[in-house]
Each structure stands twice: as C-alpha cells, then as structure tokens.
C-alpha cells in the first residue's frame, strides 16, 4: 500500500517536472523575450544588458532550475502586455474560474450519475430513450454553441438571466466570491450549465454502460440466482462496482472542466484565468501562457493523484496489490 502511494507520488513529481520543462522551453525559446521587451530596434548593448539581467546567458539547466525555483515562489515574470506580474494577474482571476468549475462539476456529477443509473436499470423505458437521444445531440454540440444558444434563449429572448460577467462579487480576503450575492448566483447558472453539460453526458453514458456491463457479470447473475431483490442487486452489488470507473473518470474530468472553462469564459466574458489564457494565446503573451500551463498542469497532476488514491481506498483488489503490473 505505502509503496504504491510512493510510486504514484514519484510519478506525479516526474510529470510535474516534465510540464515545467515544457513551459520553460516555451517561455525561453518561443517569442524571444528580449525582442518582446525591447522591440526590434534596440542596440546590441541594450540587448546584452537585458540578457545579463534576465540571466539568459547562463547555462540552460541553470536557467531551468531558476525557472522552477521562481515558479515555486509564484514568480512567473511579467506579462508582456501591461507589464503586470503574471502571478498577480492569475491570482486575481483564479477564484472566478474555480467557482465556475466547482458548480459545473457538481451539476455534472449529480445529474450524470442519476440519469446514468436510471437509463441502465430502465433501459427500455421511453424516458431513457429520450434522455439518450438528447445526450447524443449534447455531445455533438460544441460547448461554445451551447453557451451562445443559452444566451439567446435565456438572456436575449426571455431576459431571465444575465448574459455575461460575474454579477456582484464580495471580497473575502484575496478571494472574490460570487456565491454570496443573488446577481452572482444568477450569473453562475448559464455558464455552469454550459460548462457542465458535456461532462454530464459523458458521466451519464459512462455510468450507464458500466452499469449495464456489471449487470451482465456472472456475480450479478449469481446473486440474482440466489434470490436477492432487485433493489439489493442494483444498489448493493451493481452500483459500487459501477462507481469505481465512474469516479475515476469523473475525477479526471475535473481537470478538463478547468481547461474547458477557457471556452465558456470567452462566451460569457467570465473574468477567469481561461479568458486570460486565450488572450495571451492571441497576443502571444508567452509568460502568461507558460504560467497557465504550469498552473493547469499542477492542478491536473494533483487531481490525478487524489483520484488514484481514492481508487486505492475503494477497491480491495488494488489495495492488496493484486492488479498492479497486470492491468
């Protein structure tokens, strides 16, 4: 058990260093920082002075460790646009993104598992078929289009909900929250649905197919043959076995929710890190891009680690080291 945890931890650290390497390489080699800071017309002396100041003439591995070291202290340099520290930019916008991601994940997981289990148990009912057809359209609709259509319906035509921004926010220390005001909550509804819908269909379909597969397993047929009631069969034997892969995937989806927030934030002009990132891609603002990559990479690695450990706690086979190496 302990050795597995250690192994996972090592893997995570290795991945983090790789991600850091990539963001370092982007930071260092894409779009020459000297050109970006000084412009094309700088003199040779000016350039040399800046290279010295930025440490660009040091050996590459030293630069890499400097980069990692400052990243660990939340120092990602200054944005090329507006010359603000990147860390400040990101931290001011992070709460908006995290609140949005959290709400949509909650929405996706709860509704996704309920509908998934329902459509698996009542697989031939009209409602199940209806839900499934809708979900297929849901998968084919790009997130941004869902957002635009929701705006059209609920903001333009019905005028029920705001079409952009976070509404009023309240400052709790450095964290600005929209969860405590009515306009903030109203502003969250459309973006959360937009962002969560794709994950919802994914979780639902996965829950359904896992449940169907489990219901077809011999051990489920065996407990049926032993005369257990449908309720016992479905919820005590089938559901726990279904939820293991679902939890894994749903957990891993948390990461993609943060990443997909880029799209939703653009549609709703939501002032989060995603909007910041897409602007940085558009304007080739390299420090922001590389910092965002590090941030999201770190987040993903942590999420993966937590999911893995959760998995260990739930499944006795893995806990006892049975599947390792075979799976």
């Amino acid at each position, binding site marked *: 058990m302990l050795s597995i945890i250690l192994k996972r931890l090592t893997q995570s650290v290795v991945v983090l260093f790789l991600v850091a390497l990539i963001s370092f390489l982007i930071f260092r080699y894409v779009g020459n920082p000297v050109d970006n800071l000084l412009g094309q017309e700088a003199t040779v002396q000016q350039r040399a002075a800046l290279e010295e100041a930025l440490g660009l003439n040091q050996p590459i591995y030293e630069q890499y460790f400097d980069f990692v070291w400052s990243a660990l202290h939340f120092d990602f340099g200054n944005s090329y646009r507006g010359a603000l520290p990147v860390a400040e930019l990101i931290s001011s916008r992070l709460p908006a993104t995290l609140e949005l991601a959290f709400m949509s994940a909650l929405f996706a997981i709860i509704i996704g598992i309920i509908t998934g289990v329902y459509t698996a148990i009542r697989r031939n009912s009209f409602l199940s078929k209806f839900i499934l057809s809708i979900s297929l359209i849901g998968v084919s609709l790009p997130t941004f289009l869902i957002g635009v259509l929701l705006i059209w319906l609920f903001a333009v035509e019905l005028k029920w909900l705001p079409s952009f921004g976070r509404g009023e926010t309240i400052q709790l220390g450095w964290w600005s929250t929209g969860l405590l005001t009515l306009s903030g909550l109203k502003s969250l509804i459309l973006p959360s649905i937009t962002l969560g819908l794709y994950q919802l269909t994914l979780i639902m379909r996965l829950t359904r197919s896992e449940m169907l597969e489990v219901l077809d397993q*011999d051990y489920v*047929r065996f407990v049926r043959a032993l005369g257990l009631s449908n309720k*016992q069969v479905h919820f*005590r034997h089938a559901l726990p*076995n279904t939820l293991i892969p679902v939890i894994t995937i749903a957990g891993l989806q948390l990461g993609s929710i943060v990443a997909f927030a880029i799209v939703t934030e653009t549609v709703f002009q939501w002032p989060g890190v995603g909007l910041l990132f897409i602007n940085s891609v558009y304007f080739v603002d390299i420090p922001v891009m590389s910092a965002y990559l590090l941030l999201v990479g770190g987040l993903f690695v942590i999420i993966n680690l937590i999911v893995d450990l959760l998995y260990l706690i*739930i499944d*006795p086979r893995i806990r006892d080291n*049975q599947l390792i190496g075979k799976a």
Partner: protein
Amino acid sequence: MKQPLLNLNNISVTFKTRRQDFKAVEDLSLTLKEGEILGLVGESGAGKSITGAAILGLIPSSGNLSSGEISFKGQRIDKDPKIVRGSKISMIFQDPLVSLNPLRRIGDQLIETIQTHSPCSRTEAYDRAIKSLEEVGIDQNRFNAYPHTFSGGMRQRVVIALALAPQPAIIVADEPTTSLDVSNQAQILSLLKKLCKEKRTSVILITHDMGVISQTTDRVAVLYSGKLVEIGITQAVLKNPRHAYTQSLVRSTPRIERGSPKQPIHQIPDSKSKLCPDSKVLIAEDLTREFDLSPTWFYHKFNVHKQRRVLAVDSVSFSINKGETYGLVGDSGSGKSTIAKMAVGLLRPSSGQITVNGENLNSSTISHRQSQRIRRRIQMVFQSPYASLNPRWKIGSILAEPIRVFGLSSTKEEEQNRVFELLDQVGLSKSDVEKYPHEFSGGQRQRISIARALASKPEIIICDEPTSALDVSVQAQVLTLLKELQREFSLTYLFITHDLAVVSTMANKIGVLNQGRLIEEQSSELLFSKPQHEHTKMLLDSAPKLDIA
C-alpha cells in the same frame, strides 16, 4: 405417482439475431425428482446452459422463453421466477473467478444471502454462515476475506456455500468445474455430490464432459442442437446408448487405456526407429526458462521492486526418436507450452538447450540462412483453431506463405499445386483456397493449421494441445488425421496436452511435467499401468473417466 420436484413442459427458448429468430431450446420436457442428480450433457451450443438459465428466469436479454411452462412442486414459476430464486432453486456458474462480487467480503455476501431468505438476527445469520463455510471446507478465519484472495477451487467452494446457504431444494450447476484444474475438478465434484446427497438437494449438472456425467449423476439427459435426444439412468445410457448422437458421444470420449493387451496403444509400428536409438531428432538438455514478473521495464531495470522471478521450466531433459510421438502432460502452468515455444525458437532458454538434429535454433551466432534451414524442419500446430489463422487472409495465402518464404517452389503454378496438394492431404477441397478462416468450423480450421505446418515438409511437428478446443467427436477425427499423416510422412511429434486420455492414444513415450519439472518419464504402457510418481497417480485418479460397470 409422486409429483416431480421440477417439471419442464415443452419449453422453447428463442433468441433474436440479426437476420432471423433462432431457437436455442426446442420443445424440451424434463422432470427432476427429489434428491436426484440429473446430468444435462451436450456439445457447446446444444442449449444446455440456456435450459439451466431458463429455470431461474435468467435468460440473457436478447432471448426469451417463447413457449412451454416450468413448475416447481406443481406451482408454475416461469411467469415469476423470483419466488423460487435462491430460496427453492439456486445456481452455480462456470467461472468462479467472476461469480463473486469483488468488492464484498465473502462473509457479508453469505450473511446477506441468508438474511434475504430467512429473517433472522445478524448473529444467527453469522453462525449459519460460518457453518456453511465449514461444510465446504473453508476455514472460518477467512470469513472477512475478499474473493480475490482465494484460488479458483476455493472460490468455487465459496460459491457452493452461497448457493446452499438458503437451503434450496434444487441447485442448477452450469459447468461448475470446467475452468478448474483436473485435481480441483474431482474434489469440487465430490464435494457437491456429498453435500447434496446429505441435504437431499436435487442437482441439475450441466456439462459437456461424459466423464463427469458418468461419475456424478444418477440420470442423464442428452441434448443435441436444442432438442432432447435421449434420457435415462446414467449407467444404462452409457452402456447402451440408443440415439446415434449419444453413441458417437460415448464412443469418441477418449478413455485412458491402461495397457490393455487387446488394444495396441499406439498404432505406429515403426520398429525401425526403435531398433536404432541413435536417431534422436529432438533433444532437450537441462532446458530451463525463467520469467521475470517485475511489473515494467522501468522497475525491472532500476530494481525498484524486488524482482519476481518464476521458474517456468526447470532443467528438463528428454529426447525424441525419429518417427515417434513423445507426449508431454501436465496441468496448466506446468511449463509445457514454454517448452514448445523454446523448441521452435519463439523463446530463448535461460540455460540449457534444445536441438533439432544437433542444430540449435536458439544459438546467438546462428545466421538467418541457417535458422531458416532448421525452421523448415520443425513446425507447429497450435491450440486455438480461432487464433491460429490470420482472419484477414484467405486460406490460399495462409498456406502459400511458408512455401514462398522457404523458397520451396519456383513458379506460381507450382506453388498453387502444392497448396491444393496440402488441402487434399488434410481432407479439404481445392475450392477452399478462396475462403476466409471464419467460414470454417473449428475442426476444419485445425486441419488448415495442420496443412500449414506440413507446407514446409517438416520432419518434426510440435502439437500444442491441438484438440483441447474441439468438441469430442471432432477431436477424434483430428487425432486420426494426425496419426495418418505421421505414418505417411514418417513425422516425429512432440505432443503436448493436459488430457491423459488423448495422450494415451497418441504417444509412445510420455513425460509428466509438474511445476516446470519433468517428474516422470515412461513408455505409455508403463505410465498408465504402473505410475511411479505421486503426482502422476493423482492425475490418473482424478481424470474423469467413463465407468461402464
């Protein structure tokens, strides 16, 4: 007459397939008496498992009980089978590895089952659960263990305990021992028989194995493509089968022949080779193979984990004379297939060597040309008729490939003729060259596989369980073909199998493998009449046989 315990009256089970409906069971009628063990026997696809599932209303969702009725003690149960599930009729499935919920402790599963059927306190249920584990020979301190910590045979015991826990009147056992090793098989069968006789529980035992039927059941019902063709007292049916299918089933079930004087055990009277013992064509010397089970390359290289090494083959030596058949027998995991792979150069030995006419295919200094010369002379027939032929290739191309690779024909026409000749030798027709493997039955595919092995005109053929995936009637035909080909081309066989009955009809000399070691080597006659090693005796005793008293 007393009312039968279970009555199946003219039942049919229909499956919807892509193009038309298909009747898996047709107008089947059966009765089961109290305390009796009834065997349901037939080949795969005969409808025996479906019949078992139908009794409990557990037919897979693409099928349904289209006509007939099933009653338990005179009460109809086919409309609502839930009233008898578990409490009156219980079931045991084939593969114990997947018939227990991996996330629940076995004790909890037992208590849950007991409490579902008889409302009682948890302590009472606990006591009963402990008792039922004891009955099947599982120590009570394993009560809180998860299924994956048990071996296959132990898990099947747990399954039996679960099935018997609600004290049902009937148990439907669907191939309960097929996925187990021979030694476990015998134990589980006798345990099941003993417990059911004690508790006066009736059993419907579904199997394809006549040996199992003969040793376990009181009566037997024979199914053939969904229909009941014969039913009667087991001994009577075995002794005097009336239906043609039953006759062929009884006849083609291989028996272990203990050197009976009337029948020659091998029909290859190649006296010449026996006279000159120097003509050894395949020699294994101290053959050893280790496997490294460390998880991945990374861990293995950097030694993060303790390396888990397993000796699959441990200093095995034997030799085969020209024109003879050498049988290698053992349970799964005894290393017999690993030896086959080393013989044909698919695996390198960790130490020791195996040579073909004195040449070593696994030598590291061998040139491509030399190794091709050896390969041409030693070919192989594989176990699975499904996996051994490339599904995307036509039969013609499959057979032509070795001819081309070994440069055995100079023109396209010559190659074509050789392919026809090969098909003819294994009893297939010329028109088959244009077909794909999936258009053939298992037995025919095995013939194609044999033809491919013959294509390079080899001297030695390794047969790795060539008939274990086939139904018994087809099995006999393929074995006969192998014998004929041996006589015609004076082939040498290394015949690998877990089935003592099959090897007794094929081999001159037999080696018994156990956990990678060759524990006994005897001529066929001696091995069956006077086995030396304990393990061999155990194998011989536990093999299911046809006892016709």
